[in-house]
């Protein structure tokens, strides 16, 4: 294989095999990925490289544990009644401020992503908590799934913890310093815009039906009910706030501890059966990750990966933007972290000369969109599980416009990097914070006005119906 084009053959064949096995033969995605990987290796003259195939799966070891334990935790607090209870109180407490509630719940849904740096963890924890509330507000299951998937992704990118940026930084020796403000400026406006875009119309059209509200178990079990969540927050915050004193527990351990506490805090359940069913729900994704690991390893082995990367980063500047917008989410299908590492690093190098912090921040958000890309679509898939939608493409459909908006905004962020470089790294910090605060206040006022507008509209429809 001396010609670079000859090395295209295995990768093209791998993609074709995968597509055929998944769509024509309706095999599970994971099994199709394994088949494609084996065939790719065979065609490239590597035989069946067992060591490589097995080694590839190990690349997702930590992700597998996070997914498994997060899923168990989520099912446990669902079974204990905690999820229903919180949704109940959120809605009754904010009945007169629906638009504010939307925005606050969006920020709350993001919060787990902000501190864990994982969209899966966010969707399965804070996302799962607010999902019933969104539904009770009159937002459809699928749209609710889309909202919490987007919240998980934006949360993963928002500071203080952004793993994709750290991965990109690791590849270009850029310390994780000075990212908080550029990332906030990038993600928060998007979060507000997206939740209003997806939710405002639905909440305007419905009045809250108290009989459809999820039940509250607060009176029955009292504050004990909230214990798993309290422990989760305490452990994560402690670990993040005092990294040099508190040992790093890691997400799997934190989820495991909280999951073990849950059965003693609320409704009766059989924790073993709950855990077993949680793993059953997580298994398709875990299988896909193992399969993707094999696929990636064979891609690197046969040169398919290098073929794609060198093709993409070598494009002229105009096409480079297009290539970032298309290839990073596409590649993110194998994981947002993988996209950040494999494409994010060369893209930052190709854009050297522009403020690297702005570029890496924007690239991390584009890479994160990969969490919506089938076959893995981690954020979309788990959001679908949270809202009990067996077909995750229905959730993804509603993510399309928000995702396009996000990619567009991110590319715009790179294109206008010189402006942000001057503004966000302005020496006059006082003026900078003043301007940002004024903008935030203005947005808050708009949301408060929206609250009244929604209520008034709702009354009008109510009268029309009567």
């Amino acid at each position, binding site marked *: 294989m001396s*010609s670079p084009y000859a090395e295209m053959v295995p990768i093209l064949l791998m993609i074709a095999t995968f597509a055929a096995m998944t769509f024509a033969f309706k095999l599970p995605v994971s099994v199709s990925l394994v088949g494609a990987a084996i065939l790719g290796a065979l065609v490239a003259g590597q035989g069946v490289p*067992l060591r490589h195939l097995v080694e590839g799966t190990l690349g997702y070891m930590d992700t597998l544990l996070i997914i498994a334990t997060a899923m168990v935790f989520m099912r446990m607090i669902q079974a204990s009644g905690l999820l229903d209870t919180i949704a109940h109180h959120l809605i009754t407490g904010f009945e007169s401020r629906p638009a504010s509630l939307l925005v606050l719940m969006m920020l709350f849904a993001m919060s787990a992503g902000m501190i864990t*740096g994982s969209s899966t963890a966010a969707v399965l924890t804070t996302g799962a908590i607010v999902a019933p509330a969104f539904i009770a507000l009159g937002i459809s299951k699928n749209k609710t799934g889309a909202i919490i998937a987007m919240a998980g992704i934006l949360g993963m990118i928002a500071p203080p913890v952004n793993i994709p940026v750290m991965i990109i930084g690791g590849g270009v020796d850029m310390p994780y310093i000075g990212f908080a403000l550029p990332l906030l400026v990038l993600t928060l406006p998007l979060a507000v815009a997206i939740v209003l875009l997806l939710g405002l119309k639905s909440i305007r059209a419905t009045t809250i039906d108290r009989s459809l509200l999820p039940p509250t178990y607060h009176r029955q079990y009292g504050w004990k009910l909230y214990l798993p969540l309290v422990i989760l927050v305490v452990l994560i915050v402690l670990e993040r706030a005092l990294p040099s004193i508190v040992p790093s527990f890691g997400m799997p351990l934190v989820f495991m501890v909280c999951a073990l506490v849950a059965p003693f805090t609320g409704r009766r359940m059989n924790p073993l059966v709950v855990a077993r069913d949680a793993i059953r729900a997580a298994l398709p994704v875990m299988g896909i990750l193992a399969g993707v690991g094999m696929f990636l390893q064979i891609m690197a082995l046969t040169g398919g990966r290098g073929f794609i990367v060198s093709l993409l980063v070598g494009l002229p500047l105009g096409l480079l933007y297009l290539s970032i917008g298309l290839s990073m989410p596409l590649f993110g299908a194998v994981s947002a972290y993988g996209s950040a590492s494999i494409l994010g690093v060369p893209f930052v190098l190709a854009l050297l000369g522009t403020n690297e912090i702005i570029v890496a921040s924007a690239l991390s958000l584009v890479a994160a969109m990969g969490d919506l890309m089938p076959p893995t679509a981690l954020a979309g898939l788990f959001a679908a599980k949270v809202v009990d939608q067996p077909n995750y493409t229905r959730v993804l459909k509603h993510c399309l416009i928000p995702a396009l908006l996000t990619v567009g905004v991110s590319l715009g962020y790179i294109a206008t990097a010189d402006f942000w470089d001057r503004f966000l790294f302005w020496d006059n910090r006082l003026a900078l914070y003043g301007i940002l605060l004024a903008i935030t206040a203005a947005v808050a006022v708009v949301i408060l006005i929206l609250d009244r507008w929604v209520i008034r509209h709702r009354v009008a429809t109510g009268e029309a119906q009567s």
Partner: protein
Amino acid sequence: MIEREGGYGRGWTAVVLLLMTGAVLLTASHSFLAMRVDPPIYPGPGVTHVVALSDYFEGLIGTPADTAVYILEGSEPGGTALVLGGTHANEPASSLTAITLIENAQVTRGRLIVIPRANHSAFTCTEPQEGYPQTYTIETPAGPREFRYGSRGTNPIDQWPDPVIYVNAAGQSLAGSEVRNLNRSYPGSPSGNLTEQVAYAIVKLIRQEDIDISIDLHEASPEYPVINAIVAHEDALNIAAEAAMFLEFEGMQIGVERSPANLRGLSHREWGDATDTLALLVEAPNPAQGRLRGQTTAKLIVEGIDPYYVRAAQRGLLYVPFSAEGHPIDERVGRHLQTVATLLDVYNSYTNDDIVVAGIPTLSAVLEQGLGAFLAPPSGPESGL
């Protein structure tokens, strides 16, 4: 996911699948475990004694991170130099240069201390999803000699799990996986994780042995801006600049970079800050490490030829020239050897505590005769005679 009714899954099919999984695991484990055996290094006539890194920090005794430290002591007293190879086990020119020094160099004045596998644990595994071969061979006159291609970081088996964020001993926040990167862990900590303990032991060695000049050998991917370069702590900047000038005179293109003050945990920063040594790091171009590389094979590691990199160079994406001849391991190791020799020469011109080392092969000699000519035969020096 398509839901399909029925299917042929039974208890016995589960058992059969488990047995098959077991067979796959057994085969794969066999090759994973083979990586834990160190290929031999044959100390040359210049080596006066071999100690262990754990002699400097006993916390490493019996751990997979303990590693051999080769001491080459001259008959006359002088200064002391440290050469570190294998900080990153996926940068082969680094550890091969150290091995070539151990097998060839002879010190007449002062001392040369060489650690060929600084992160020993990293030599026992390859990184997942990179498709690396586990070994590569260098042709010697007596036949092919095998070496391991390891990973950038400590084997996760020896240090698990990674934190979400790694805050190193110098206070820098890094991605969690960097917790296993020796060159982000300096100055290390005796109570830290295994990698930090290795870093601590190395810093302690520098202090205890009173090392005057320390050189950390590395390789980088051709698309990475700091390449074919010496990175120097500000105290060592003069020596680096002067050495680079001499090397350029001899026709070897090499740049000098100042160690960034805000990038903490790296050897060229922390060695220089924490000890009195002159801290330097040297980079060579390794296409096998790059993200643009084609087929990942042992041949690529040794010959350094890659058509994708030739095209990338034509498009101006690289920071080193890249022609059809590539960057073979002979050239990369030869560069490192020549750079080490030149740095020592320049250092000697500034001090009375000379470190005089003979027998370091030059770049042109390695290019002419091949690296194998300077390595002991596969089964030891006696067998080749």
